[in-house]
């Protein structure tokens, strides 16, 4: 069984001195700089064995000027999860360390998030657009993205 979020927090803070987490319900908030270390710890500690990232995405909150990264980590070895990690980013300068060195499964998901949300993943081996084409302007999943009306008459 997976330990409760509070227990996860205390265990990680003991294993990684200097790292502080915030618990909010079932969610663990992590600072961007600590993210790879926390994930590595969750992956390599035998009790947790969170060996793959099931899902990874962003949520945009323009009214607060922030963008949240959401990670769902699960364990195939222990058959438990998901553990939800969140990282708060500044939406005008959304940069977070890439998880691809820890979890290979993050590679395409991070490319997707970069493509649709414009989050930059530092240390990603191949950060390019994946669903949209090269040269596309903007990031369409951002809440303030204006969809071009293709049926509108051309300006005369």
């Amino acid at each position, binding site marked *: 069984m997976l330990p409760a979020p509070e227990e996860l927090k205390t265990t990680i803070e003991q294993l990684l001195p200097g790292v502080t987490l915030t618990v909010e319900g079932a969610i663990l908030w992590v600072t961007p700089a600590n993210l790879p270390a926390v994930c590595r710890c969750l992956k390599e500690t035998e009790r947790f064995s969170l*060996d*793959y*990232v*099931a*899902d990874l*995405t962003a*949520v945009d909150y323009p009214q607060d000027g922030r963008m949240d990264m*959401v990670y*769902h980590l699960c364990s*195939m*070895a222990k*058959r*438990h999860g*998901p553990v*939800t990690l969140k990282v708060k980013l500044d939406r005008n300068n959304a940069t977070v360390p890439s998880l691809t060195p820890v*979890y*290979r*499964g*993050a*590679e*395409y*998901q991070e490319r*997707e998030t970069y493509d*649709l949300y414009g989050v930059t993943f530092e240390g990603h081996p191949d950060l390019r*657009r*994946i*669903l*949209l*084409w090269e040269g596309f302007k903007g990031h*369409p*999943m951002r809440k303030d993205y204006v969809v071009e009306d293709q049926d509108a008459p051309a300006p005369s």
Partner: protein
Amino acid sequence: MTPLGPAASVKPVDTELMEVNLGPQHPSTHGVFRMQTVLDGETVVKLKPVMGYLHRNHEQIGEGISYIASFPFTDRLDYFCSMSNNLGLALAIEKLGAIQVTERAEYLRVIMAELTRVLNHTAVTGFLLNDMGAFGTPLLYAFREREKILDFFEAASGSRMMCNYIRPGGVRVDVPAGWLDRVREFVEGYPRFLDEFETLLTNNEIIRQRTQGVGVLPKDLAVNASATGPVLRASGQAYDIRKADGYSIYPRFNFKVPVGSVGDVYDRYYVRILEIRESLKILQQALKEIPEGPSASPKGAALVKAPRTFRPPKGEAYGRVEAPKGELGFYLVSDGTPQPYRYHIRSPSFINLTVLEDMCLGQKVADVIVILGSVDIVMGEVDR
């Protein structure tokens, strides 16, 4: 005739790498999908998948409409398995809104989900054989059986492929009279077809030559790269969300999780065949035990009639199912309005492609086609 000089005087022939685009219009890509390959002779030295030709920003559409209105759109994700897609979204919405499901509906959902798995694995085996050059015959055998299942779906939901059938709290409408008996008869007869299919394929010398040792995916890489479904299990990791999460009523049924040992194309083929047999076991049990009763809970039925009255409390939910292709997850964030604030899909086809290059490196270009066929992708789900 001039005699040839000594071998030492012959200069080695210079070779250079060649870039080849496989797709986007190629019969083996199962849709519009491109693989940028770099070849050394016939050997692959680099392979980058290019996708997005079918991208319609499904997630953005989902954020502009009510929760229930997304169901017809999920049909078009993996258009072979619309029932599983419906089930995934229904689970996420039920978590978010704390909606109960009736007993009969749980059984109907399991029956639909397992019929979908039988259908998908049969069809994908046919496609795989097509990719290997066995044109037509195995695929038509598979499609003959698939058509029978599609008839059941049509009788229950009104549509062969775009079923739009499962709803939060239950299913949209109960199955017609006599439907369960016809499915029972079909399930009893299916092993006979499968035995015949296997006689043609499993010990076939040509298939073994083409698939064994080809496109090997090591277990630790498969786990680390978030591969799920038959692709993962063929590599030897017994991980099935039906067992791990025990969602719906799966813990009540007796079934095994088949695993492979090598992780090559052959194992991926054979794991699917074994999974069909396990699905048939679940179907037999479910068809025997299914109770009478309402096909949707009162809250669920009210939701179908007035979708915009559904305003789940603020919060978030991640619901996932073992779809035939792997872990299909729906991540929903509610802000208390009738539309989801965030609607995200974790699609198995898309994430299983992460390791495509690793499986193809060092293989011949003809094997790339077979490896892609064994991963089992549907572009509606990859591109969303």
